[in-house]
């Protein structure tokens, strides 16, 4: 699936990119909505098989940042991006890269569970494959089962695969959306406040699930909830007014932040 990207690698790969512990790297990433600048010169390296949390007050550009990592930002009319985003050393904003292929490699889960309302549970998970032309029923069955198992949903829905996706509870719907994202076999998973619309029990299940996915995926999670960032993430980035203020291991950020701004935010003095 990522073949197109790989074949381009010789042309756009940067010579000095030897650092293989990082999956994603941005260089002077700027993003706008019309004339309003949402991201300012973001330089961040995101580790492979780790969970990176992005925290910060509302409107600081958290969501915009992860939406730049799979080229979803540009779908908003008037949105603009400059700078570079390397995934496996390849600039995904380079001219020869097809954004659709990028999005297959970098999956995304949204704040509100958004299963396709007209599709069954099975079809929701299979959608990414089916709508890209895969028709082999056996292969689909296999991937649907595997994805639902990975999302800890299989046991709950295995007898109801043809029921509508919207018949599930909120937490189940969100896990269905995670399964749907996993089915296209991405390497990176972006989560945009995945638990903020859920009750605490459903949220805690999703948190545990996210941690379990770390061994196979590089995960970036945007969250409003600092306890959540502290619980699940290995690294934390603090964004404020479109700038990356501080980025370090989660333990350091929460116990001993270098910047006063970070400390104030974590202590709840603003936000």
């Amino acid at each position, binding site marked *: 699936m990522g073949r197109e990207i790989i074949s381009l690698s010789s042309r756009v790969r940067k010579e000095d990119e030897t650092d293989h512990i990082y999956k994603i790297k941005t260089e002077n990433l700027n993003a706008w909505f019309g004339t309003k600048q949402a991201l300012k010169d973001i330089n961040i390296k995101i580790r492979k098989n780790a969970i990176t949390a992005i925290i910060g007050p509302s409107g600081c550009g958290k969501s915009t940042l992860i939406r730049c990592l*799979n080229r*979803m930002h540009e*779908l908003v*009319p008037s949105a603009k991006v400059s700078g570079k985003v390397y995934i496996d050393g390849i600039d995904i904003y380079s001219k020869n890269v097809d954004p*659709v*292929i*990028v*999005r*297959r*490699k970098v*999956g*995304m889960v*949204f704040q*509100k569970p*958004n*299963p*396709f*309302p*007209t*599709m*069954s549970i099975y079809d929701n998970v299979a*959608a*990414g494959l089916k*709508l*890209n032309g895969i028709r082999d029923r056996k292969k689909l069955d296999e991937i649907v089962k595997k994805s639902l198992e990975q999302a800890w949903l299989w046991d709950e829905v295995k007898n109801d695969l043809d029921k*509508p996706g*919207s018949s599930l509870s909120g937490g189940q719907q969100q896990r269905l*959306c995670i399964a*749907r*994202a996993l089915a*296209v076999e991405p390497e990176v998973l972006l989560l945009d406040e995945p638990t903020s619309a859920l009750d605490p029990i459903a949220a805690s299940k999703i948190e545990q699930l996210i941690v379990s996915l770390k061994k196979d995926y590089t995960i970036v999670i945007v969250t409003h909830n600092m306890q959540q960032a502290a619980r699940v993430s290995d690294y934390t980035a603090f964004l404020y007014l479109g700038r990356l203020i501080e980025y370090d291991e989660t333990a350091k950020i929460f116990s001993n932040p270098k910047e006063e701004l970070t400390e104030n935010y974590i202590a709840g003095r603003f936000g």
Partner: protein
Amino acid sequence: MQRYWIRKLKDKMAYAFCLTCIVLAIVPLGSILFEVTKNGLPALNIDFFTKGPGAIGEPGGGIANSIQGTLILIGLTSLIGVPIGVLSGIYLAEFGNTQFGRIIRLTNNVLMQFPSIVIGIFAFLIVVLPIGSFSPLAGAIALAIIMVPIITRTTEESLKLVPNSIREASMALGIRRWRTIVSVVLVSAKGGVVTGIMLSIARIAGETAPLIMTILGSQWFFYGFTNPMDALTLRIWRLALLPYEYAHQTGWGAALVLIILVLSLNVIARFLTRSKYKV
């Protein structure tokens, strides 16, 4: 707290007002249906559905050729109008947020309010005159011009009701834009799109004026795409002008058939396009 009963009264009055209005709105509908059924039902018999009209002034004969004509017109018009209308609606909803899109939207709304007789004259000029004969083709083109703006508008409105989060979910899976639109957005909006198509069919099935200029009307069954043809509305109009009691009754019968025809097309279309899940 002392004004509590006033608020309660206001609430009751608002409800009563709405109820009165809905009754007023239903009265004409009910009385038309009642009148058409009462006068039309006695006209229905086997001959009515199997034979063309007899000689003028003699009772007997049927409206089979008019039913056939109306069905051919609906089919032909839908063949032209539905694809153009639905695709235009998709364009306006998904890509129409531009200056060009706004102009098209405005033009479409103007076209929707065009007097149908003008559209009839237009089809007369561009189809009937060059061919040299009245024809179902001219009729279908005139009716398609009436149909397209209705479908375009309703399709656009239905697609816009599909939440953007659904489009994003699909795009984020690496599904291409056209696939997202056809397999996710359009499928979610199917109910509204079908309603728009059925509305437009009901509208064109009831048109008379543009047909006078295009298919003319005929005593005979369909005999070629470049010859005059009959339709139910034309038949009703001509029968109503005749000074015979039997003709008026046949006219009522034809009106009843037209209503039932549109209604059953509606039911069939809904049955065929029903979704597995409620949205």
